[in-house]
């Protein structure tokens, strides 16, 4: 998996998603959303109530991040991924609305994995704790919803060569499980 690097433009369409396999290293460029616990809870509640969402989800990638505040002159502060499992309860509903990609760190539950296969969406990991490095791949950032949530607000960010690895593809493969099995010693 360390050999080939795949460049992805976002927003993407399903044909891009279909080509990705667990273990693929990617560099993502383009525009995507950010959101974490509180924003997900609000989006989920709106979907349940059948109300419109404040942001377009279809075709989008969402990055689970709550950055540090930018210093004057900075675009964004430190911006590494947060633990994705906390978004598991809400993620399938967003995939049903057309969400194509999720970027975070850590394992997803079975319902999320099934939804990724059903709705054809991919889960990527960014390197947890590499917040300073990742911030340098973010070229613009703008709060577009839920400003009151502070670091948890929904932003639209433009990224250039944002490094990530495919963890779960649409075919049911899981890099976390495969990688661990490959190196586990009895």
């Amino acid at each position: 998996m360390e050999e080939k690097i795949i460049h992805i433009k976002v927003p993407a369409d399903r044909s891009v998603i279909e080509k990705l396999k667990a273990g693929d290293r990617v560099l993502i460029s383009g525009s995507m959303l950010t959101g974490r616990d509180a924003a997900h809870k609000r989006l989920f509640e709106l979907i349940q109530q059948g109300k419109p969402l404040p942001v377009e989800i279809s075709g989008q990638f969402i990055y689970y991040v709550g950055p540090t505040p930018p210093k004057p002159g900075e675009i964004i502060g430190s911006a590494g991924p947060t633990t994705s499992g906390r978004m598991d309860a809400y993620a399938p509903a967003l995939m049903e609305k057309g969400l194509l990609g999720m970027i975070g760190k850590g394992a997803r539950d079975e319902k999320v994995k099934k939804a990724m296969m059903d709705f054809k969406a991919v889960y990527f990991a960014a390197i947890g704790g590499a917040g300073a490095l990742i911030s340098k791949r973010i070229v613009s950032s703008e709060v577009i919803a839920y400003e009151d949530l502070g670091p948890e607000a929904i932003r639209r960010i433009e990224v250039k060569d944002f490094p990530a690895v495919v963890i779960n593809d649409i075919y049911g493969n899981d890099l976390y499980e495969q990688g661990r099995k490959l190196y586990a010693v009895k």
Partner: protein
Amino acid sequence: MAREIKADQITDSVKKLCIEANIYLEEPLKAAFHKFAGLEESGAGREVFHILEENAAIAEREKMPVCQDTGITIVFVKIGQDAHVIGGGIEDAINEGVRQGYKEGYLRKSVLSDPIERKNTNDNTPAVIYYEIVPGDALLIEVAPKGGGSENMSAIKMLKPSQGIEGVKEFVVDTVLKAGPNPCPPIIVGVGIGGTFEKAALLSKKAVLRPFGKSNPDEKKAALENELLVLINKTGIGPAGFGGRITAMQVNVETYPCHIASLPVAVNIQCHASRHKSVML
């Protein structure tokens, strides 16, 4: 005669420690990223170590936090019994330092006023503070910002004494396995054995804060640390959980006497962004 230490001095020190701990990793830890990049068998794992090394360098250059989770602020205070804090309460002085540090350092405010109501205090206070009275007239302050992702993967268990050392090992490895990729491996594992329920947890936290690269001075405990490290690294979780040989970089064990009926074991998981800084006043 008691030595006087001004509350303002404490505030100022805590402020600086909050900012510096979040930007500058310990030299031995950065050296470990470099060393392990050469040792890890998995290609993806090697790449993770390279990224962590570069990330630490960018953080220093840009004076930016290494990780966006600048933590809840844990403060360990050792107060010399002949020291006397003047000009305000020590607790207020510490929290004011946190408040100033997180504002001036552009650190993320991640603390909620209540675990149920979940409203952000917007200044990262209050800190979690532990005091210890020691001989002398100095004041030692250690600040350790702790991220939520790794803290959430920690665990404690009251073992039966009959489960013995094998039970301890099994629980430690099981906790790391359950954590999997979530706590940002390569991790540092703090293990507290003995004492009581809360003492074991505190020991595990103190174990995590030991300077990187130092073993327990007791030979038997040091051997246990090595054995646990080998067992953990057999799990195959690897850097970032992508699969590999290096899941943990270090295991630190701390122990305390305990009740005849008890064998408490606490495992505190620390992500690779192990941040702590101290100052002596």
